[in-house]
């Protein structure tokens, strides 16, 4: 019997072209060197962008991979922020333990919401998760004994053994490291057996069931993992922020993250990451004109839905391919 030529067949991922590799290397160098040549403000923005990257990865897992809508990711993010801040204050352990705790609490709530979500689809699921997000914001603002309610919660500095993080520049390498960790985690999950099950469920539940996938379990796990990653982003936030207020954990944040993931390219990890960076920068610029911010988000989201439903990067990629083929 001849051996299968498939054993060594490529996975269908074309290798990155040289230019893209060069660009990545440059970006990596820039990312590492950043704190040495810029101001604290720029580093602060970079930290924030990296947190948004992780938050987008979280949303990507549930929407992009399993195809379930969630309008509650600001809530999972907030749970992560509060849980890790409170854990950090309660026990004298290195900060990563607090982050892990935040991710676990958010993940547990995510599993619960995921189990409820089994009965719902599409717009109903979107509405239900929206309601949960609003409810959580209310909890953040009113559970005074735990969250300090509408006054906001002071976040104690993160500690790594003897090292106490007191500035954005100090926090940056850690934020970058945890962001890369989250990217690695998401890529590994996406390529794993579980990741295949996620996408199978997204494309056809009937076919997924016919292949022996436990669809209900897969959907719940997708929700839980997604919430845990969002909670982890919350823990990263506590690395460099000293204060959290419930106002910043509402629907606006959910919409921002949703926009990032959709505009970047639904279903693609790199789209989610790119969307977080591009849109995070735009949102920072728009801070100068807060009264127009939401109108502009809305307009961008609508335009992308209409003209580039596969996202910014797929859109640009297609244009480049067309130009190359002289069309």
């Amino acid at each position: 019997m001849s051996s299968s030529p498939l054993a060594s067949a490529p996975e269908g991922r074309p290798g990155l072209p040289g230019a893209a590799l060069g660009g990545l290397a440059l970006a990596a160098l820039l990312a590492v060197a950043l704190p040495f040549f810029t101001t604290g403000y720029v580093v602060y923005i970079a930290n924030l962008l990296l947190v948004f990257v992780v938050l987008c990865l979280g949303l990507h897992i549930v929407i992009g991979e399993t195809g379930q809508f969630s309008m509650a990711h600001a809530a999972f993010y907030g749970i992560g922020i509060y849980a890790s801040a409170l854990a950090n204050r309660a026990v004298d352990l290195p900060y990563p333990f607090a982050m892990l705790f935040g991710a676990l609490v958010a993940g547990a709530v995510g599993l619960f919401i995921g189990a409820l979500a089994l009965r719902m689809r599409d717009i109903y699921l979107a509405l239900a998760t929206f309601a949960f997000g609003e409810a959580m914001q209310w909890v953040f603002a009113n559970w005074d004994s735990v969250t300090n309610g509408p006054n906001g919660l002071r976040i104690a500095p993160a500690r790594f053994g003897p090292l106490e993080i007191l500035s954005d520049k100090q926090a940056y390498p850690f934020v970058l490291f945890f962001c890369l960790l989250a990217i690695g985690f998401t890529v590994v999950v996406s390529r794993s057996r579980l990741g295949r099950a996620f996408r199978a469920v997204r494309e056809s539940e009937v076919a997924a069931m016919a292949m022996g996938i436990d669809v209900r379990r897969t959907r719940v796990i997708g929700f839980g993992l997604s919430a845990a990653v969002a909670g982890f982003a919350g823990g990263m936030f506590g690395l460099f922020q000293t204060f959290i207020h419930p106002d910043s954990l509402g629907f606006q944040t959910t919409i921002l993250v949703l926009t990032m993931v959709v505009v970047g390219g639904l279903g693609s990890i790199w789209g989610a990451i790119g969307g977080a960076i591009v849109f995070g920068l735009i949102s920072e610029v728009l801070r100068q004109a807060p009264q127009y911010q939401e109108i502009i988000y809305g307009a961008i989201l609508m335009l992308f839905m209409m003209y580039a439903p596969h996202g910014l990067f797929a859109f640009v990629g297609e244009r480049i391919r067309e130009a190359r083929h002289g069309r």
Partner: protein
Amino acid sequence: MADLLEIDGISAAYGRIQALSEVSLKVPEGAIVALLGSNGAGKSTTLNTVSRLVPVTKGRIRFAGEEIQSWASHKVVSAGVLQVPEGREVFRDMSVRENLDMGAYRRSDAAGIRRDLDRVFEYFPKLKERLQQKAGTLSGGEQQMLLIGRALMAGPRLLLLDEPSLGLSPLLVQQIFAIIERLNREGLTILLVEQNAAIALGCSTYAYILENGEMALEGASAKLRQDDSVRRTYLGG
């Protein structure tokens, strides 16, 4: 020969609408058994109760000696019951290769999986040519081939085929059924749901006819082909 599948007086309902009432049928090991009937007679529902996508309200389903009517669908797949769902349910955004890999989702025997992949390519050389192509861009016939190939990747003992001829040209129908008969000759037991009664009675040994969720008629396929009422209703004269 022993019965690989035995459905014993099952009923099923969608909400308050009774879809099946006390349906019984047997599929002997190594046979092709056809399940015929008009649209909405309950053919697909019957398959769906076996693959556990639709719950039964009454009755028993036995596969290889075990009662499976309360099992979860993924457990039934692990036991070797594979349904080829109706309506081109391929994973459209995945490549042909990824679709075939999904078929082996519940397996971990790498050598066996590779052997079955080679077998699938032997049956369907077209799939091998289109390995990296998105399944959604395949033609209807190729998608049907992929569906059967994907089910074969699970290493089934019993194949539940739901309308494999649907929407295909006569030539393609012939090709698909040639493969189905070959799979059967090589040892696979098949329960076949078809609207195309002529071709189903041609390749099966025994057939059942459903009407409004109840078993109306059964018999050896060769005999049913001669039966006047069957000819009138299902064979067009």
